[in-house]
């Protein structure tokens, strides 16, 4: 019974971790759907958003190190703190400006190029943004606190303790992440299904020429899509930054999004969610089972640990072999 309860707790925690993966995967899906580009820079976008948010909140002077090194000054801080809500709005504004710059300086010159060329451009973009983030805001690890509750939820622990005699340890941040992710997805779905701009976005994703012929500006749609991806990156950056601090390894969460996308399919928003949940739950349960002497130990006679490092990738590999389009992806049928 204890094993079962503990397993349930692991399952719930897995679901919540999965939500965090989904948040990153969502940004990939959005851009891929609208422009057929696999945006390698999505993880760095999240990092850049989080860095900018912290910088704005703490009144950091952008490029402070560079300015100090060049002019021998000692400026660090504007000396003010900006409330989280305004800082988030400002950062969202920065992400929109970034989207416009990306469109004007990069994408516009690559119209009609092969997807692989656009992909290479996003790799370049990723390195550029990582460097820019470093020069603008400094390379040290920062804590991010936008007022989201953190720590183990007492309410959940006590309630479950009363019900089952076993208190579940669930991080309040994870609960909030789940709620915010749900709202974000609902907003995205409403946007893409019911608004004129959303319809135009789906049209551009499908056929550029046809989109032009009904009066859709590709430029506008691309700026819009990258802005939305930037906003999703901001949300992911806030969640991950709050959880584990704003540091440059944050850009590596993009790697965890890859197996999520392979499972869910590159073109499906629900796919990104379900894929994230499966990976989150899968790796936590697998770890729980394989490292437990009572389960794996008694079944196989051995235990393994640290499976979380590779489980997601092995699962993705299996999917690539048996269902390359993912669970929800569009099957590629070539007509000849």
């Amino acid at each position, binding site marked *: 019974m204890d094993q079962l309860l503990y397993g349930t707790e692991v399952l719930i925690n897995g679901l919540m971790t999965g939500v965090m993966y989904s948040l990153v995967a969502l940004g990939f899906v959005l851009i891929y759907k609208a422009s057929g580009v696999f945006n390698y820079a999505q993880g760095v976008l999240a990092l850049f958003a989080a860095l900018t948010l912290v910088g704005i909140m703490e009144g950091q002077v952008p490029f402070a190190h560079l300015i100090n090194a060049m002019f021998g000054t000692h400026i660090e801080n504007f000396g003010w703190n900006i409330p989280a809500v305004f800082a988030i709005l400002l950062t969202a504004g920065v992400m929109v400006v970034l989207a416009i710059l990306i469109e004007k300086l990069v994408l516009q010159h690559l119209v009609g190029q092969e997807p692989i060329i656009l992909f290479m451009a996003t790799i370049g973009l990723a390195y550029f943004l990582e460097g820019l983030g470093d020069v603008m805001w400094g390379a040290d690890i920062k804590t991010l606190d936008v007022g989201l509750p953190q720590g183990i939820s007492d309410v959940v622990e006590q309630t479950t303790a009363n019900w089952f005699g076993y208190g579940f340890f669930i991080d309040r941040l994870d609960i909030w992440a789940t709620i915010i992710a749900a709202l974000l997805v609902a*907003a995205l779905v*409403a*946007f893409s299904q*019911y*608004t*004129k*701009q*959303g*319809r*135009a976005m*789906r*049209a551009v*994703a*499908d*056929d550029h*020429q*046809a*989109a*032009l*012929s*009904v*009066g*859709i*500006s*590709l430029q506008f749609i691309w700026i819009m899509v990258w802005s939305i991806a930037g906003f999703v990156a901001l949300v992911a950056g806030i969640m991950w930054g709050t959880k584990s601090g704003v540091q440059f390894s944050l850009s590596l969460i993009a790697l965890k999004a890859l197996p999520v996308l392979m499972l869910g399919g590159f073109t499906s928003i629900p796919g990104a969610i379900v894929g994230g949940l499966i990976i989150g739950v899968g790796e936590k349960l697998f770890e729980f089972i394989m490292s437990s002497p009572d389960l794996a130990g008694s079944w196989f006679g051995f235990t393994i640990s640290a499976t979380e490092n590779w489980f997601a990738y092995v699962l993705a590999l299996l999917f690539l072999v048996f269902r390359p389009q993912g669970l929800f992806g*569009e099957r590629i049928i070539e007509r000849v």
Partner: protein
Amino acid sequence: MSDTMLLDAPAEGYVTADGRQIGPVVMDLKNITLRFGGVVAIKDISFDIRQGEIRAIIGPNGAGKSSMLNVISGFYVPQEGEVWFKGYRRGPMRPYQVARLGIARTFQNIALFDGMSVLDNIMTGRLNKTKSGFLSQALWWGPAEREEIANREQVEKIIDFLEIQNIRKTPVGRLPYGLKKRVELARALAAEPQILLLDEPMAGMNVEEKEDMSRFILDVNDEFGTTTVLIEHDMGVVMDLSDRVVVMDYGRKIGDGTPDEVRNNQEVIDAYLGVAHD
């Protein structure tokens, strides 16, 4: 090539033999030249399009017909010449801006949104008629709701008209060729265009499908008074449908007039029968 009665028709318009009202000139193309590097696709061509008429562009393969259509729809910008639309000279424009002026088109190799349903495809034609803010649309509130309902009514009218009610919800990717062509026409019509451009609307169709499509083009013109410019290879169809015909060959205009006039034009006959140019 003799100038024709119709080219000298009164500026305010005239009435055709079958009683349709043809209005004044809506689009005037003056001395258009289009080059791709060293290749001259269109050489100094001028012609006009009148309100409410069906204007055909014909010519052998590679004559520059599609290029001409692309100039009108803004996909190509000519190096020389002027495009006058409703009395104003059109500057260099992007295709989406031209579309917003009320020039809708279909493509030779069908350009539809394969992942969307027939209904959604046709609804994209209404994008430029949608004015309410995106927040009210997302929340389905007030003006957005009224607007969406009005758009749907217009689209349903077109769906009825083109007899595609039964495939309304079908994803376009699954439709056979002939129906796709019809959906593309529906999407163009949904924009309530000033000028409708059809690039080979009957290419690759069987006789029955061609007859259907011809009927739709005529009915659309009759019912909505839509000015239509079409490129077509099937001479029988062209001669039956159009009020006036422009004939192109090797990027030049070699004939312009009523179907009968064009049919009897020696240069046109030579171009189609392949007499050596000297």
